[in-house]
């Protein structure tokens, strides 16, 4: 059987064209944004909000919740007090005591007539037992699975919701790093109980947090959340100014990455970073160096021996030598995984949320973070940083060079090559 050559060529071209269409749809565009120095933070604030497609809302109150011991009891209290609606969105949903307890709380409140909406990521909850979801469903809890693993959604497979949000009655909001799994209980005391940080807020910003929750909820269920019980008119409750950061977008530059870069561009005195997955790119390194050069103390804390992803750690090492050489303080936490995603800028502006410092968080996943402009909140987070530092080993440039031999460097580079997906 002879196949003419032109048929083979046409067949090859068809595959090539389809492959090209697919690649151009899914590829990350190599954005190299140019962030100028922002000398005056207050003056730059409307620009920071405008460039990240949000506005600064005044009159909020923030309460930092540390680890599972701070987070879950606060949640239970707010769930128990809910009168109208409980909304919860999370990536990790893994069976265990805390998961069961949350499910029981949802079931109990749904039976009381409170509207309960639970959004879990299909990938993050893949160890779920369907029996639990059926029980939730039977009690009247509305459960939505984000980007279900079905054939028709195969092109969305890589895009997960990594957001961790809770909203009660549209009046209390949580923005956190915690997942719902045994690792997030306790007080960060050992390698099985992780360190994490969230924030409980009241005030006008809760409308914006609800708005982020509503995005995925509408996408998956078509239900539009309207009315006072979801978006009440919110009076000021305190002095903190806040802005929400959400979303990723393959075709344009990530709002969250831009915010991180603008934070590096505006810092004048001190910058604290805690992040479990810290894989900076060249542009970020350049901004860090510029900050150090103008006299900023930069302290970065990453996980040490306890990590759930050694590949990420290695990829992060790629620029450690360079950072240490320019005078950045790097710490590795020894006791447990520090999972919190924290930024503290000049004792004033801080960030709490779900966003890792890597391309997966910036460009692929759906994330949610909260910017908080409040000296009290910054002081609380700084104190926690100081406490964590007691369990850290500070890396030194000389020691790093010895530890980081040829073989180590090669592994780092190999891992860094994967960084687009990490």
């Amino acid at each position, binding site marked *: 059987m002879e196949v003419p050559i032109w048929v083979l060529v046409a067949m090859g071209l068809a595959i090539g064209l389809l492959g090209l269409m697919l690649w151009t749809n899914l590829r990350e565009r190599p954005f190299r944004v140019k962030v100028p120095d922002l000398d005056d933070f207050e003056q730059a604030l*409307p620009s920071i909000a405008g*460039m990240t497609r949000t506005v600064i809302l005044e009159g909020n109150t923030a309460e930092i919740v540390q680890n599972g011991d701070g987070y879950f009891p606060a949640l239970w209290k707010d769930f128990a007090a809910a009168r109208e609606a409980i909304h919860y969105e999370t990536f990790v949903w893994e069976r265990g005591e805390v998961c069961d307890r949350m499910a029981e709380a949802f079931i109990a409140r749904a039976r009381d007539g409170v509207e309960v909406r639970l959004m879990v990521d299909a990938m993050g909850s893949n160890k779920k037992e369907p029996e639990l979801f059926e029980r939730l469903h039977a009690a009247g809890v509305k459960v939505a699975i984000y980007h279900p693993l079905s054939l028709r959604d195969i092109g969305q497979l890589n895009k997960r919701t990594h957001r961790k949000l809770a909203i009660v009655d549209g009046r209390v909001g949580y923005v956190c790093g915690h997942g719902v799994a045994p690792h997030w209980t306790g007080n960060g005391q050992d390698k099985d109980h992780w360190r994490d940080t969230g924030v409980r807020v009241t005030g006008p910003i809760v409308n914006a947090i609800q708005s982020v929750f509503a995005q995925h909820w509408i996408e998956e269920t078509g239900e539009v959340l309207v009315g006072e019980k979801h978006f009440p008119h919110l009076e000021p409750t305190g002095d903190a100014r806040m802005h929400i950061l959400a979303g990723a977008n393959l075709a344009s530059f990530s709002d969250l990455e831009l915010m991180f870069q603008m934070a590096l561009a505006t810092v004048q005195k001190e910058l604290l970073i805690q992040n479990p997955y810290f894989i900076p790119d060249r542009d970020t390194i350049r901004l860090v160096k510029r900050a150090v050069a103008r006299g900023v103390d930069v302290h970065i804390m990453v996980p040490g021996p306890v990590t759930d992803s050694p590949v990420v750690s290695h990829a992060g090492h790629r620029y450690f030598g360079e950072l240490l050489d320019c005078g950045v303080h790097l710490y590795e936490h020894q006791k447990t995984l520090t999972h919190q995603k924290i930024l503290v800028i000049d004792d004033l502006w801080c960030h709490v949320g779900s966003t890792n410092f890597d391309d997966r968080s910036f460009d692929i996943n759906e994330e949610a973070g909260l910017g908080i402009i409040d000296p009290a909140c910054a002081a609380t987070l700084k104190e926690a940083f100081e406490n964590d530092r007691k369990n850290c080993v500070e890396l030194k440039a000389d020691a790093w060079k010895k530890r980081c031999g040829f073989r180590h460097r090669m592994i780092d580079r190999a891992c860094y090559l994967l960084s687009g997906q990490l």
Partner: protein
Amino acid sequence: MATVRPAVSRRTTGREIVISRTAAVFYVAIVLGLILILWSARRERESHVRVPDIDRFEEALPSIAGLTGAPIQAGNRVEILQNGDEFFPALFRDIAAAKESIHLETYVWWKGEICGQVARALADRARQGIEVRLTLDAVGSNQGDGELFDLMRKAGVHIALFHPPRLQDIGLFNNRTHRKLAIVDGRIGYVFGHGIAEEWTGHGQDEKHWRDTGVRIEGPVVNTIQSVFAENWMEQTSEVIVGEKYFPRLPEMGPVRAHMTASSPQGGVSRLELLFKIAITSARRELLVQNPYFIPDGEIVGLLEKAAQRGVKIRVMLPGAVTDSSVVRHAGHRRFEELLEHGIAICEYKKTLNHQKIMIVDGLWSFVGSTNFDDRSLDINDEASVGLIDPGIAGQLRAAFEKDAQSCPPISLEAWRQRSLWDRFVDRASYMINEQI
């Protein structure tokens, strides 16, 4: 062809047939797999959005802001600009008075004297040291005069072409920016339907001079208009615009509450689609729609009918024979009978193309912008419309609607039912391709 044939022809063996069949099956599987992934990555996750009843508009305002990602900002001064005769002179005045920066984004940049005037105005200011940024859609501006673009570039105007046709971006080719925005010094914002072309000059007097509407705004919402401009500017140029000259702190300037809604095809349900659906749902007395491309989907038709049933007086004004896209016009006809049966008044504007995209809800809440009432605007393109909550503004737009209605004989249900078979066929055929037009 130089296909080398074996010297001795021999019969194909059974084994070779199995191999070639396996290869063929394999090939088809790969092609189908790629098509599936591509479709899945691109497909608009079909949104059967259920908007609950909205009884009290004021109470629903935070919901509307939250759902469309656009805060409602009080204290804006708004001026309505009808047709080219009011729009261009105002724009030229503000361009001439700019102290720091001029930003303009548009889809259409075709031909005509007006293009030269805009180009020279921008070039003059750029030469005087004003930062001028111009975002042009690569498709919408491809018939523009290259000399004018060169003139502007030489004068120092920064021009960004949105989604230029490049091999590595072929997957984005269908996504155009249809937004029409101008921002001067970060303090004055324009949101409009006008393109930069001869058709948009004049005052809608004849077929060659179209009818359109824009607004000029001063006040806090201008920060958000700038933010919408900055989105596509950064996407194309990587330039992050920060500082007082782009995002100043803006004092209150007038009585109008405003919210700027922009949408882009990435990720989830379109914000403008949601906004339009919420607007229809919230109407209690009267809903006026003027739109040049009106192809509502089943859900929007359902919401319009529900509104009509609860006593909302709905009037829709569309282009008649003067249109730049008769396919769109015919596709729109598809649902006319159903709408007319529900008592929704439809009329076709006779004099010229009415290109304005206006909606007025209950004499209070109005929309002006770039967004057509079809799937291309609501799901594919980048669009921007501004919502204005103010009885005075709604009153002015309503008066303009009434004036337009005078050259607009209404369509009666009976006359519509007596259309020829051919007309019906064209309508159906046009509707079938409606997602892309």
